[in-house]
């Protein structure tokens, strides 16, 4: 666990590497790389787009160069500008982070031509592994298990259907050049294959400028387990154990852990050896990841190799004690590996939650944007590591990945790491954007996850109707209601405390007992509250719940003890008319506390009718309209595609909620739309 908080010891040996490194990336990974550079005494150069001028990675760097406007293809993918920045600042090496140019062989080649070291594998390995078809051929040759039904380039939709038929459904379709889960679609029949082909080829063209596709057998109910490898330029390669990344939505990882609960030492070793053999087959150097699908019988199949630092690398650092960025820099300079395979330990357990600015109630997460009006990382909790590139006041914009941070917890056992994750999620303050903490907390406390019974289907299986937030048990409901009521009374009492001589009635005695009513999810409960010191005894539904706290009403975090159980709840908002929004067990709940009198009179208040939304299609997120498939007067069937919105490089198909005639269309292809903007009206 020495690398847990990247300590100075990991870089203690004074090693001549580079004087100055340019980090061709943004956000958390740029900051992560700079941290190690600083520890190694290396000067850093940040590149940034104009909207990122005051971003954290820019402030952290010794120098910063603006490489273009906000769109990534004009800035972070702009090779000319980045090469010029390297030249101008005299950077001797470039660390590409992940995404952007990290697996772009052209970039690596051009850097080399300029005499700048690319911190990563050489172009040959990038090319070999970057192409999914070629990589499988190489893998087969290197005696690595590969997925059955592997085939070639796809010309059009009909060929896609034919290939799919040969392989047998289900099949997976994705861009050959794409990494990670982005652009990956699964088809169960011919129709879905055609649709998948269309989406994937569009995405391939827009994201990678390379519209080749790949179709292969889709392994049902698999686990996604990957092996971290580390190789040098002298033919040495190590495997640094596995990472279990099965918790995914839309093929994007959400929660990762190392090690995996599923692997036995033999399987781990077999996977590790195959990974190393693949790395050696392509003369790999630097850190890389070999992804496998593992079925229920512990058969494993090569998926792809990522020739870069992975997002989830910190959990490997936690259990092995290695600083992977430092290792990459050493290797890039030409040093041989310091370790032998036998030196690589598995110390304890590490879990990573990807905290995203997205709404988990919509398809397990649709992007959300906004300004982080309040932001506090739970770094005061021991054994918590937060890799982030944002701070209070930062904007989450439509231009980039909506990841807020990677929250990593470590423990000597998995249970300890999970316990800390729970605590860390409860103590994480994020305001101003919608975030996925409700989902993360549900995942890591779900009995199936806790027992290690997971697959890449986990979310669909556990939440077949979509994620609906935490479901309260009776005792949790009482706890929540009592906490809200106690908070209400504490706030009421404080609003009567005026300092100085302000003509406050002295004959009025401070109230000690309250009769109130609290409402949650349409259920109204009559409660009585009595106070002694900072403890409120709440009687509701015949139960007595004691709530105590310091009642610091300014703090975003409200630590309470409810019937002896300590919890951190967050008060998201409190209104004069008794509405209290609490984040409790990760999920936010809307409550309303009223005096008994106000509650009795509330029945006279007129119901305000909300807008009928069944015939209105609104944009669920900010983004741009890629295509509109209908025009006014068309008749659409329920579920038929109406338009496609692209946000954060993801294309989302908007479908009709009912069969109806299109009344009016309010968007055109190419428009930029905000969350909640009206797209199409049905009759």
């Amino acid at each position: 666990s020495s690398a847990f908080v990247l300590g100075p010891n990991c870089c203690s040996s004074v090693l001549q590497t580079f004087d100055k490194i340019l980090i061709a990336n943004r956000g958390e990974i740029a900051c992560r790389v700079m941290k190690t550079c600083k520890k190694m005494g290396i000067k850093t150069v940040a590149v940034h787009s104009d909207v990122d001028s005051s971003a954290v990675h820019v402030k952290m760097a010794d120098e910063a160069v603006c490489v273009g406007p906000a769109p990534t293809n004009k800035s972070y993918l702009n090779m000319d500008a980045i090469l010029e920045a390297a030249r101008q600042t005299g950077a001797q090496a470039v660390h590409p982070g992940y995404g952007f140019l990290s697996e772009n062989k052209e970039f690596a080649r051009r850097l080399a031509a300029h005499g700048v070291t690319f911190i990563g594998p050489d172009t040959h390995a990038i090319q070999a592994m970057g192409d999914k078809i070629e990589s499988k051929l190489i893998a087969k040759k290197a005696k690595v298990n590969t997925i059955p039904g592997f085939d070639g380039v796809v010309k059009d939709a009909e060929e896609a259907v034919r290939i799919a038929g040969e392989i047998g459904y289900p099949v997976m379709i994705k861009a050959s050049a794409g990494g990670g889960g982005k652009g990956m679609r699964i088809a169960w029949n011919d129709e879905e294959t055609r649709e998948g082909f269309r989406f994937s080829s569009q995405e391939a063209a827009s994201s990678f400028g390379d519209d080749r596709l790949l179709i292969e057998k889709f392994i049902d109910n698999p686990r996604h387990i990957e092996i971290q490898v580390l190789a040098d330029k002298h033919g040495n390669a190590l495997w640094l154990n596995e990472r279990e990344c099965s918790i995914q939505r839309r093929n994007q990882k959400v929660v990762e852990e190392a090690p995996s609960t599923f692997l036995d030492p033999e399987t781990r070793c077999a996977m590790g050896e195959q990974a190393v053999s693949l790395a050696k087959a392509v003369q790999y150097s630097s850190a890389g990841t070999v992804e496998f699908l593992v079925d229920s019988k512990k058969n494993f199949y090569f998926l792809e190799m990522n020739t870069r630092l992975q997002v989830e690398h910190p959990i490997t650092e936690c259990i092995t004690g290695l600083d992977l960025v430092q290792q990459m820099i050493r290797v890039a300079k030409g040093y041989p590996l310091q370790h032998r395979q036998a030196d690589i330990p598995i110390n304890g357990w590490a879990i990573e939650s990807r905290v995203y600015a997205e709404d988990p109630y919509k398809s397990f997460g649709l992007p959300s944007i906004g300004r982080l009006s309040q932001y506090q990382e739970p770094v005061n909790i021991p054994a918590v590591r937060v890799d982030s590139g944002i701070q209070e006041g930062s904007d989450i914009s439509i231009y980039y990945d909506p990841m807020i941070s990677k929250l990593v917890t470590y423990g000597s056992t998995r249970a300890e790491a999970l316990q800390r994750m729970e605590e860390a999620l409860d103590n994480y303050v994020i305001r101003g954007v919608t975030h996925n903490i409700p989902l993360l907390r549900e995942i890591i406390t779900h009995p199936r996850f806790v027992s290690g019974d997971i697959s890449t289907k986990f979310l669909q299986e556990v939440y077949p109707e979509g994620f609906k937030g935490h479901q309260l048990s009776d005792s949790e409901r009482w706890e929540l209601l009592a906490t809200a009521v106690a908070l209400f009374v504490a706030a009421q009492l404080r609003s009567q405390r005026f300092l100085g001589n302000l003509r406050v009635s002295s004959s009025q005695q401070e109230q000690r007992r309250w009769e109130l009513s609290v409402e949650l999810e349409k259920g109204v409960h009559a409660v009585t509250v009595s106070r002694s010191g900072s403890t409120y005894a709440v009687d509701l539904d015949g139960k007595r719940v004691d709530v105590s706290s310091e009642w610091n009403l300014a703090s975003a975090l409200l630590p309470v003890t409810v019937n002896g159980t300590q919890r951190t709840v967050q008060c998201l908002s409190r209104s004069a008319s008794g509405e209290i929004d609490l984040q409790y067990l990760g999920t936010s709940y809307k409550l309303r506390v009223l005096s008994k009198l106000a509650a009795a009179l509330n029945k006279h208040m007129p119901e305000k009718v909300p807008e009928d939304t069944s015939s209105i299609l609104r944009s669920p997120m900010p983004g741009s309209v890629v295509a509109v498939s209908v025009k006014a007067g068309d008749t659409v069937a329920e579920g038929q595609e109406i338009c496609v919105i692209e946000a954060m490089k993801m294309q989302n198909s908007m479908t009709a909620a009912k069969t109806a005639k299109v009344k009016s269309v309010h968007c055109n292809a190419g428009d930029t739309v905000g969350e909640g903007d009206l797209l199409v009206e049905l009759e």
Partner: protein
Amino acid sequence: MAALKVVRSGSRLLNGFQSLLNNPRKVTCGVAATVTKHPRWYCVSHLSVQERIERKRKAALSGGGQQRIEAQHRRGKLTARERVELLLDPDSFVEYDMFVEHRCSDFGMEADHNKYPGDSVVTGQGRINGRLVYVFSQDFTVFGGSLSGAHAQKICKIMDQAMMVGAPVIGLNDSGGARIQEGVESLAGYADIFLRNVMASGVIPQISLIMGPCAGGAVYSPALTDFTFMVKDTSYLFITGPDVVKSVTNEDVTQEELGGAKTHTAVSGVAHKAFENDIDALLNLREFFNFLPLSNKDSAPITECHDPSDRLVPGLDTVVPLETTKAYDMLDIIHGIADEREFFEIMPNYAKNIVVGFARMNGRTVGIVGNQPKVASGCLDINSSVKGARFVRFCDAFNIPIITFVDVPGFLPGTAQEYGGIIRHGAKLLFAFAEATVPKITVITRKAYGGAYDVMSSKHLRGDVNYAWPSAEVAVMGAKGAVQIIFRGKENQAEAEAEYVEKFANPFPAAVRGFVDDIIQPSMTRKRICRDLEVLASKKQANPWKKHANIPL
């Protein structure tokens, strides 16, 4: 003047009498009690005085009777007494003039069944969070809340006492208008109230909450008070209703369009804020009341504060975009610096290019004024000047320090503004800031251009502490315009523009002259303001003796 017709209720009295005979003990006090109608003709001398007191009290508590109370509830409105009870601390209400009855003897009004103890208004005093307040609450169930001589007299009585003891007056308006049966007596009553509104102005805070109709001359009492709030969908304010409008101007307009909450909070600027319903409004009024001092002799209240006064606000360092033409939300700054991010905005939907409202700094009430770059670039125009000026004058009258955030590109140009009298109206804001003697702290966040710079609580208008953020630009105008004038017809405009930007588009020209006291890091703003307010708490400054100033109205 519009007024509701008085509905005769004689026929229903018999039913009430019968139920009283059936259940002589059923009558209970309190809001939710089953109320029984009293046969007033039965109250003859053989009843003891004690019994008559009891009966009158019970009658007063039941207002216009159960059926009208139910009708009031069906409209989504609470009764006058329910409202008072919700507004005030439990058991704190002390009622005055429960036995007052109207004195009209025309049109059959003298009949016993047309007399209601207390008449059509409930008055008295009570406490909000322990602090004294005088309240009147018009009772729509009695003659439609119409204003009789007695009704006016009751209101005047509490206003007079509020003035003497120095405590705010809150009026809960729900009245059809003048009591037509009383004629000139009713008009006199209005005028008596108007006069007291004027005398009390600047002495005690006066708040009006419109919770039903308020029409005709009646509207001028709320208009004279410091704050007018409304309830959405159930309250209306207009000089003449839709029928009269139709007959005079032939316009077709609904009550809601003519004088509903939306109209007055977004279009006319007559009302300062609207709330969802009666309960929401009254609970918010309690919260609002906590910001106000009891009178002009009391200092602004300080409540217990859990938010550290030296809290840094890192988010403010990135709030102003680097491009000077890009908008940002001034509310982000205000929420950032205020205690617990709490800001009670006044007129949030009107003249949105200026933001005004109350917040607390280290527990102490402050008034905040800020240009809003998000709307019309935060320029000053007629409506925003008037909105700002009235707010500043309220703060000055009631010892509330004023914090001003400046990002203003200037006054809005154009014929609409000039013909509308922007010169006269803009002068109001200038006047208000200049005459104010309360502590004044100003923060220039970005642009402070031209005359608008002077207006926005500048050092020259006796600003006590004026800060600039590093992004501040104090100049006569933006670079482009300036260069076009200075280098008219010359080449190298771009170069000249760059030179101008270098010279003026930064805080130094103002700082070297002492027009700003310091250039501060945005994240330090809260800490600095809290410290300044502590120092300025003992500020003493007086304007020259005058009968009153002559603000350009």
